[in-house]
């Protein structure tokens, strides 16, 4: 046995077994190593990093669904609805349920006014922008006929549903459009401004009028639901949590809807503006600017064509003439003149001037509107007959500075702070203004023009109404407001805090003189007799503003083309004792103030009078259910 033991069969087998065993160990080592590594990996993911993944899983699982807050309604002072929400129905297709699109589009085309191809194109365009679980809206704000058509074919229209939504509805349409305003979707600029804490793209905000004035209260606060969604985003359940939306408040405005309607009715086709205030509190009872627009036009979203039509209209329907247009006051300025003169002690009630029909001042002849002249006139006669010569003389004695001071004291030349939209300040001239703007000194002859409200003096209708309220009260200025002022004490005893007044009172003798004269304008042989309401002592003053020189010498206004006719004013308050309402009516190209403007004022005041006098008490309007209108119909 000299053979090397290494060559023995046993030994070879032994080493083979050894090698095999090593290799098996190596293989099982690989498995053990990897499985051990996996356990470490699980430890890392599930124990060390678990919070991170838990958050990610939670984000996967929960989606927050916005619950928009229904916008509040706007009511008039007695609870009548001016603006409310209405139900808007839309036709939607749920992509997870819809099956036969060709059939669906072909049926829907019969009621939606589109060809099936158009619907298909719309569907494809819209579906690209949304998650799969979000239904595609094919038609918005459809009428009830369409809803009925779709409902009746529910079995054929797989996956088609009807969405219910709140939309703004303006009961009056074009009535008081400038007052009511309109809503619009928030712009990117609004969202970026940071003024709206929880605003989202697509939120609706008030853009003008009452809608804007009360916006923060009307809007309410959005809520949200927390829903469990699956991987394609479909809701599969709801979790506890979420915040219900806080509906916007129903706002009671100062408006009297009956007066408002009457005002718009009486204006008919005239252009112009008018505002009626509660003379004691400054509450706006009615306000209109003509021509207007239908606020409902803005509800269906921004429509370029509608917008362009409105902007391009030569009548400027979007301009709120109550606050944004300043006009010459014409003869309505004579009350300011009277107040200034009485206050300065230049005249008293029995001071007379002789009116021969015209007068010469500073080498220029100034005519009275009455060519024959008024003869000897007192202040009272001068206001009733609207004698120009009387006030030329008063103006000459006063001088522009004292006229301007009284005008400013009565609120002219600065905004009243009504708060809807921008407001013009108007213009009260003086020497400093002339030098600043026209680089020339003030000529005394200009004062003569200003004395009858012509020349460089401009007022807005709202300023006129506030001025009349001052004359109706104690001479201090009330702040006009659109919010109904409610007091437990009743109208007779409103706490001063509710009705802040500005400025200093005028002497009662001054106010009495002016008021009595204004009563005479309506009730004696004055210029405003067409405003007379038996039993309601309306005090007023007409004003006629020359538009072109052509009107001088023309007896009958109707001979002139409409755009050449004079502007007409009728301002005042009622009744004489303890005045309640102050007003200013302005009719563009309306001719003589007493002919057009006074009847409009009369109509509205008649409505007020009827409501407040003939009925024992102001009807306390029932609170109308105007809340989330859709709530009842959601089960639809």
């Amino acid at each position, binding site marked *: 046995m000299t053979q090397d033991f290494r060559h023995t069969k046993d030994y070879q087998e032994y080493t083979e077994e050894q090698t095999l065993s090593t290799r098996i160990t190596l293989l099982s080592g690989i498995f053990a190593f990897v499985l051990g590594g996996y356990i470490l990996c699980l430890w890392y993911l599930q124990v060390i990093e678990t919070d991170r*993944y838990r958050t990610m899983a939670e984000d996967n699982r929960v989606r927050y669904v916005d619950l928009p807050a229904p916008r509040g309604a706007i009511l008039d002072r007695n609870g009548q609805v001016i603006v409310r929400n209405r139900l808007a129905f839309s036709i939607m297709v749920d992509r997870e349920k819809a099956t036969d699109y060709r059939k669906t589009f072909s049926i829907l085309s019969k009621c939606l006014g589109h060809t099936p191809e158009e619907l298909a194109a719309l569907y494809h365009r819209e579906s690209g922008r949304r998650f799969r679980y979000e239904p595609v809206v094919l038609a918005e704000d459809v009428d009830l006929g369409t809803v009925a058509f779709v409902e009746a074919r529910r079995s054929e229209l797989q996956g088609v549903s009807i969405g219910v939504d709140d939309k703004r509805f303006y009961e009056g349409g074009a009535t008081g459009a400038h007052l009511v305003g309109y809503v619009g979707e928030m712009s990117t600029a609004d969202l970026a401004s940071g003024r709206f804490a929880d605003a989202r793209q697509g939120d609706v905000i008030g853009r003008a009028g009452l809608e804007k004035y009360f916006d923060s209260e009307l809007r309410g606060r959005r809520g949200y639901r927390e829903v469990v969604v*699956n991987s394609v985003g479909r809701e599969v359940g709801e979790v506890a949590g979420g915040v219900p939306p806080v509906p916007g408040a129903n706002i009671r405005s100062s408006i009297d809807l009956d007066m408002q309607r009457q005002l718009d009715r009486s204006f008919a086709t005239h252009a112009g503006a008018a505002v009626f205030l509660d003379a004691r509190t400054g509450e706006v009872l009615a306000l209109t600017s003509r021509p207007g627009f239908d606020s409902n036009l803005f509800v269906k979203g921004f429509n370029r064509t509608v917008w362009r039509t409105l902007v391009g209209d030569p009548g400027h329907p979007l301009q709120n003439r109550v606050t944004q247009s300043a006009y010459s006051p014409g003869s309505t300025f004579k009350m300011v003149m009277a107040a200034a003169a009485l206050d300065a002690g230049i005249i008293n009630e029995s001071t007379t001037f002789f009116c021969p029909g015209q007068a010469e001042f500073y080498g220029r002849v100034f005519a009275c509107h009455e060519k024959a002249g008024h003869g000897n006139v007192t202040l009272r006669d001068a206001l009733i007959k609207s004698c120009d010569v009387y006030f030329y003389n008063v103006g000459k004695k006063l001088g522009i500075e004292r006229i301007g001071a009284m005008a400013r004291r009565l609120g002219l030349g600065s905004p009243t702070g009504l708060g809807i939209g921008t407001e013009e300040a108007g213009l009260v001239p003086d020497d400093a203004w002339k030098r600043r703007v026209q680089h020339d000194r003030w000529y005394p002859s200009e004062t003569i023009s200003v004395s009858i409200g012509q020349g460089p003096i401009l007022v807005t209708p709202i300023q006129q109404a506030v001025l009349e309220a001052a004359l109706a009260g104690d001479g201090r200025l009330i702040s006009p407001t659109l919010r109904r002022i409610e007091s437990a004490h009743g109208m007779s005893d409103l706490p001063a805090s509710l009705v802040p007044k500005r400025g200093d009172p005028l002497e009662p003798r001054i106010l009495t003189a002016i008021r009595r004269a204004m009563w005479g304008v309506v009730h004696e042989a004055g210029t405003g007799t067409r405003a007379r309401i038996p039993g309601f002592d309306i005090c007023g003053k007409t004003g006629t503003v020359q538009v072109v020189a052509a009107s001088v010498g023309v007896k009958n206004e109707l001979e002139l083309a409409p755009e050449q006719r004079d502007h007409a004013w009728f301002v005042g308050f009622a009744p004489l004792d303890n005045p309640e309402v102050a007003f200013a009516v302005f009719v563009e190209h309306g001719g003589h103030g007493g002919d057009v403007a006074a009847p409009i004022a009369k109509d509205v005041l008649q409505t007020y009078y009827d409501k407040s006098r003939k009925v024992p008490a102001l009807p306390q309007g029932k609170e109308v259910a105007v809340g989330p209108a859709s709530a009842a119909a959601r089960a639809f």
Partner: protein
Amino acid sequence: MVLQAPPRGRFDWALLGAMTALVTLGLVMLHSATLYEGHEPFRKQLYSCAAALVVLIVVVAIPYHFWANLALPIWLGSLVLLCIVLVAGTEVRGSNSWLSFGPVRFQPAEAAKFTTALLLSGFAASRQGFVLTFRTLAGMCLIVGAPVALILLQPDLGSTLPFFPLLAAVVFLSGLRWKVVVAVILLGILAIPVFWSVLKPYQRERVMTFINPGLDPKGIGWQVLQSRIAVGSGGLLGKGLGGGSQAQLNFLPDRHTDFIFSVVAEEIGFAGAASALLLYGILLYGCVASARAARDRLGLFVCITVATLLGSQIIINIGVILGLMPTAGIPLPLMSYGGSSLVTSVGALGLVLNVRMRCLVN
């Protein structure tokens, strides 16, 4: 010959126990994963369990040499099935992987894995000496290559993956020289570009999104991410059976088949997932122990091939779930829903039990 050596080994109760535990856990998780989709899959899986039990008993009862002698016909049979599936298969997700016999659906590729393992074991055990000849190597490549080629024609790249570790393990244990091992590894690395050019666009996409999941967070990478979220959010003890939001709300793709382990990790947490991995460890350890105890090379190779097949599938499947590998489409043995995989895996483990029962030394 069979009767010469009466069973002297011990029955491997640990392996049987681990297997039973894993199948049971799989059933529980399947039930939880399909809570809201009816009990149809659960019921089917119960039938599969019954079938697997029958197969297990039959496989264990008859000595493994009997099966090894039948290896060639069985292997050829599975190749025939793979051919039939190409012609008459039911297409699922772009692959002709399924054969339908009435209500019974069957994935021939699953069977082919184990018939190939059995034939390969017999072939490796039959040769003499511990030096791998080229001829032997070619034979082994043929045995593995034929089913792989047929499966690639379906095409089902994922199912071919376990064949490669199988071949590698057998070649390695048949005495491949270390020099060659190193050379093959190097060649493999060099072959990656070639392999890459063969891949289909969607397969490349899978690999790319695996490397950078941010590429396509809502597409393929999304699956990887969602699976990771499921695992991570499970925490130490999990969200409770039926309480996994990822699983129950459809965020997990194929959650009752390839991604069942994500459900385990999410709903019973680290405790459950690590336990399952330990059970798989016991299973594989049992296979290796049986290999060492086997009375002949055939027994050794049978156990090692079964361990390699099961082990590589476990590693690939859980690697995908942990986000360590691109999505491969490989079921988790014993736990994933699917009768073909369950029956063949249990059958294979039956062979291992068979070897252990009939070894010479305990």
